[in-house]
């Protein structure tokens, strides 16, 4: 069985979809004329170019074969979870708890790390970051919200 180049088919398809969206919404900004352009003229052209390029990429991908990409599921989920923890915690709880969440969750991605290594990393990175950014450089981020 022939395996098509699904990377390019999917990628090209996404570009066509994005291009269509930009092309259609561009009309809402007012196109104007070719010699007196409105705010939508340039987005309209970009959308059109994206559609053409996406279609070309997908068409080439359809006619060739390639291996399917390997998604690194655990690193992807762990890193995103860690970043989301920082996103949620930094304003509410402060920089240090946010770093604990980020480092603790992102570390799950690695196959070799031990829970002790993670704990040491959480402590050292959070303290070093607080010393560098808040104490030394004076960024207005609380270490622990309401405390320091």
């Amino acid at each position, binding site marked *: 069985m022939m395996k098509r180049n699904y990377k390019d088919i*999917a990628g090209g398809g996404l570009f066509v979809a994005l291009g269509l969206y930009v092309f259609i919404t561009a009309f809402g900004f007012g196109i104007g004329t070719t010699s007196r352009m409105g*705010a939508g003229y340039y987005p309209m052209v*970009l959308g059109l170019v994206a559609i053409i390029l996406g279609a070309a990429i997908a068409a080439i991908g359809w006619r060739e074969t390639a291996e399917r*990409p390997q998604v690194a599921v655990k*690193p992807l989920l762990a890193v995103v979870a860690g*970043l989301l923890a920082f996103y949620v915690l930094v304003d509410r709880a402060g920089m240090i708890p946010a770093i604990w969440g980020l480092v603790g969750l992102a570390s799950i*991605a*690695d196959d070799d790390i031990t829970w002790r290594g993670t704990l040491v990393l959480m402590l050292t990175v959070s303290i070093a970051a607080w010393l560098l950014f808040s104490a030394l450089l004076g960024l207005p981020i609380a270490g622990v919200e309401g405390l320091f």
Partner: protein
Amino acid sequence: MDLFTIGFPTAFSWVNLLYCFLGVFLGTFVGVLPGISGLTAVALLMPLSFHLDPTTAIIMLGGLYYGAEYGGSTASILLNLPGTASNAVTCLDGYPMARQGRAGPALFITTIASFAGAAAGTVLVMLLAPPLARFALAFGSAEYFSAMLLGLVAAGTIGQGRRVKSVAMVVLGMILGLIGIDTNTGEFRYTYGIANLYDGFPIVILAMGMFGVAEVIASINRLKYVTEVGSITMRSLLPTREDMRRIAKPVARGAAVGSFFGPLPGTGPTIASFIGYAIEKRVSRDPSRFGKGAVEGIAAPEAANNAAAQTSFIPTLTLGIPGAATMAIMLGALLIHGIQPGPQLIGEHPDLFWGVIASFWIGNLFLLFLNIPMIGVWVRILHIPYRYLYPTILVLICIGVYSLNNQVFDVGLVILFGVVGYALKLMRFEPAPLLIGFILGPMVEENFRRALVLTRGDYLALLERPITAGFLAVTLILLLGMGWSTWRSHKRRKAASRS
């Protein structure tokens, strides 16, 4: 000479010396480590540079950029893993040299070649930038539009991937650049009523997500450092007299190749190093030695990528047009400091221009010192496991982005771009052209529409301007060339699959 009257006095202030050293030191550090590119490092430190004087900021970020070119060869030679993309070609002969027990001379030669390349590149910046800026002073909107269009099309030729996909990434960058208020009409485009998007978003956010976060996700569990890289002593560094005789010409050729490709939009250090290697292989009397530890094969590419790193500052500082993705970030840094890079820069901020050039000399001397007597330190850095490194990188990304505006919204954008960037990486779309599209896209639109207002919508009047017509002609030739090579390789592949 402005270099001596303005440049060195500026660069020799304590603050500038300190930040120059910090830049090249950290540059070597991230260069040595595979899995963090110089671009990510520049993006990471850019928010921290906001509270610095603009000259100091560019001195530090610049040092980071060219310092990474030095450090990158260390991992190529010792581990067969390029520290940065532009050192990938150094693996071909550097790693075999290390396997033959000649890691020391290989490290010495790459440092010497890097310094020679950087020196040649810096001389070229000094000679070319002022006259180019004077020439560009006559540029109007039409000329800028056409020069930037050329930059955009050339950006599509970046990288090893398929051209159509690189061009698509440029367009994606331009589409992301639409977000915010349209400067000509005041219309809000793609802001979705979110106040944080009214002015668009800074390029650092895009770079940190697309490069930083995506790079980390792709490297976890893949980068396992070999623990036995051994130690390098000073004595083992010295190359033989035969080595030195062999590298003289390759270094000169490499420096010339790098100086040529550095300022061209869309090329930069990586392509320069590959071309430098290819040329050496072709002119060599015995090409079969290449890939088995030929000293020419590490000397030429290292001279080329360092020369290109320095000369890539030429279009950025004189025209305000970045040739490489890192330069796009550098341009963003200047804009945030309220400095409009362009032909007026040398005249209006001579201390910045000449101070930065002087810092190139000082920084490269620092690098010579950092990379020869202190090479043992960097070799030991390769022992740091990636599992301790990447959570730290993520923390730096988050705090750096948060500190831009103290808005958690920006961190959210980084998460979004990180996921999108990883998906694009899986589908083999290269992110570098995207950054160039993002910074040049809005400038192209603004200048084009302003030029049309000036000619009252007359397109032919644009072509009557000789410089504009010249840029547009080159752009057209480049586009046709790209189309032709895509069509030809497509036909060749078709013929190959038939037989």
